[in-house]
């Protein structure tokens, strides 16, 4: 039975003072003083929080305490009493009784302290403020049921796999991997997402040229661009391969070549993906605008250039992602990255490009909820931006 809030909170400071006094009476280790302390405390509870007395009836505790009294009488000190056939020690019984009285008092004190808050109130208290550990607890309380189901699933799979240690280990690794991915997802959710703009069109429509121009045209708006362009190496209408180009410095490297045995495919250089990923990460850390070109079939499957965009970057300054997106992959990329705020058509006309830059800059400046649009922040970006 639980006491009503009014009953629970009657005279809390006075009871706290009485509790402190009762604890002080324990220090000499005398049975008479401890018994007095217990009597005072029970009396105080009877006056202030009578329903709590019923909670003190916990048979298991008193059975164990009674056993301790008996064992103390049997084991401690010299036997100087005879109760039926059993020789007992009065000093041992005294020590046992002291244990019983002390235990009951501590039990009464903890029961009162625990009654100050109900479980619901405690949970509300720890999850009320949306910051730090309180938020973590609130999120975790929502995650537990799902993880409990996954835990049961992993356990069943382990049994199906033949109860081997390796299967148990694999299940544990899988659970840790799920939790780590969940943590990454939570971090992403906690970080405000940058604005996303797509320059979308078919192959050869001028996406890369438009992106390169926009990178320059956004500079006067205080938006400094970094990232990766992926210009095509063409011979007439035929695509022979791709380069990678650092959008901030113009540095280039070879990336993909047409397959010799297959006219429809390209072989990509593995180190090129790493090179591009590093530049995208660096742009997210150091620049306001991150250019990522040629999001296509590879990225539609969730890999390639998309990965460094989906990663969590500590202390990132990226506020706008400017992506070159293949028209046929646009829907799939949006599923991975989230919907684009603007989807623009590439253009080779300088005036049209300037107009696009205006629209993109307006997207950020008209965004009142984002402090990064303030001029001082942009001035800092300009100082630390590309040469």
């Amino acid at each position: 039975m639980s006491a009503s809030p009014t009953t629970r909170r009657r005279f809390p400071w006075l009871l706290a003072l009485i509790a402190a006094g009762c604890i002080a009476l324990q220090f000499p280790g005398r049975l008479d003083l401890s018994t007095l302390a217990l009597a005072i405390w029970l009396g105080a509870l009877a006056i202030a929080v009578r329903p709590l007395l019923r909670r003190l009836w916990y048979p298991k505790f008193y059975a164990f305490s009674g056993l301790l009294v008996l064992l103390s009488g049997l084991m401690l000190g010299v036997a100087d009493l005879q109760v039926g056939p059993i020789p007992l020690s009065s000093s041992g019984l005294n020590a046992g009784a002291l244990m019983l009285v002390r235990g009951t008092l501590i039990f009464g004190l903890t029961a009162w302290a625990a009654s100050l808050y109900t479980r619901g109130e405690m949970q509300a208290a720890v999850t009320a403020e949306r910051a730090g550990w309180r938020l973590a607890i609130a999120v975790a309380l929502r995650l537990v049921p799902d993880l409990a189901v996954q835990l049961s699933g992993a356990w069943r799979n382990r049994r199906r796999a033949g109860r081997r240690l390796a299967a148990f280990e694999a299940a544990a690794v899988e659970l840790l991997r799920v939790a780590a991915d969940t943590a990454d997802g939570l971090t992403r959710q906690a970080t405000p997402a940058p604005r996303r703009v797509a320059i979308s069109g078919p192959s050869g429509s001028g996406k890369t040229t438009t992106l390169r121009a926009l990178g320059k045209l956004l500079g006067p708006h205080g938006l400094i661009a970094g990232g990766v362009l992926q210009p095509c190496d063409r011979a007439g209408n035929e695509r022979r391969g791709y380069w990678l180009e650092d959008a901030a410095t113009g540095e280039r490297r070879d990336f993909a070549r047409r397959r010799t045995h297959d006219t429809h495919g390209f072989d990509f250089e593995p180190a090129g993906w790493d090179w591009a990923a590093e530049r995208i990460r660096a742009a997210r850390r150091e620049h306001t605008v991150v250019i990522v070109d040629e999001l296509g079939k590879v990225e539609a499957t969730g890999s390639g250039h998309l990965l460094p965009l989906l990663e969590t970057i500590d202390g990132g300054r990226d506020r706008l992602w400017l992506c070159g997106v293949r028209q046929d992959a646009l829907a799939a990329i949006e599923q991975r990255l989230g919907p684009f705020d603007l989807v623009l058509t590439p253009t080779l006309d300088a005036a049209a490009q300037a107009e696009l830059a205006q629209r993109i800059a307006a997207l950020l400046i008209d965004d009142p909820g984002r402090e990064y649009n303030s001029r001082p922040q942009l001035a800092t970006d300009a100082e630390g931006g590309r040469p």
Partner: protein
Amino acid sequence: MAASPGDRQRFWAHAAAFGALWGAIEVTLGSFLHGLRIPLSGAFLAALGAGLLIAVRQIEPRRGSSIAIGLVAAACKSISPGGVIVGPMVAILAESLLVEVSLLPRPRSAIAAIAAGLLAVTWTVSQKLFGQVVFYGGDVIRLYVEMLTKLARSLHLDATTGWWTLAVVGALLLVIGGGAGLWGWRIGRLTVAARAAAASAAAHPGSVVA
């Protein structure tokens, strides 16, 4: 503890996810074992918890993360259907504190992992005794020592037998706790490798039809 807002978000996101995982283990397996009253179930759960904390330290080596995860897991334990929650909540917090202290100097060392597991399991076993001292005072220890001495005398055992018994119990704890620590260290590294392999496979598409 992390410094920048982004770092703090990441720190608490990990605490939430792994704390929830530990909480889920405590709520499901803990309540199951508690209901069955299996001996040493507390030590077994402590070993699992310590293993988890050590594994997390291999995945995300941030100072204070063990305490943060323990705090979250203890809060999750409050929704346990098992009913009695204060004891396990204190145990979870104490274990996380011990693991944190053990891993502070060298978070990725196998030796530190073994020490962390050992301390966490030892604490669980001694927590009951500690609780009894708080409730009944130091006389309860005197009573237990006297009981053991009389038991040894009645069984005609010599004085060294007690020490041998203690050594056997210590060895058992060493195996459970140390094993859990080492296992946590190993699965943490396996998880890091598995995640790295998955990320690498996704980041390096070899050839593409374009």
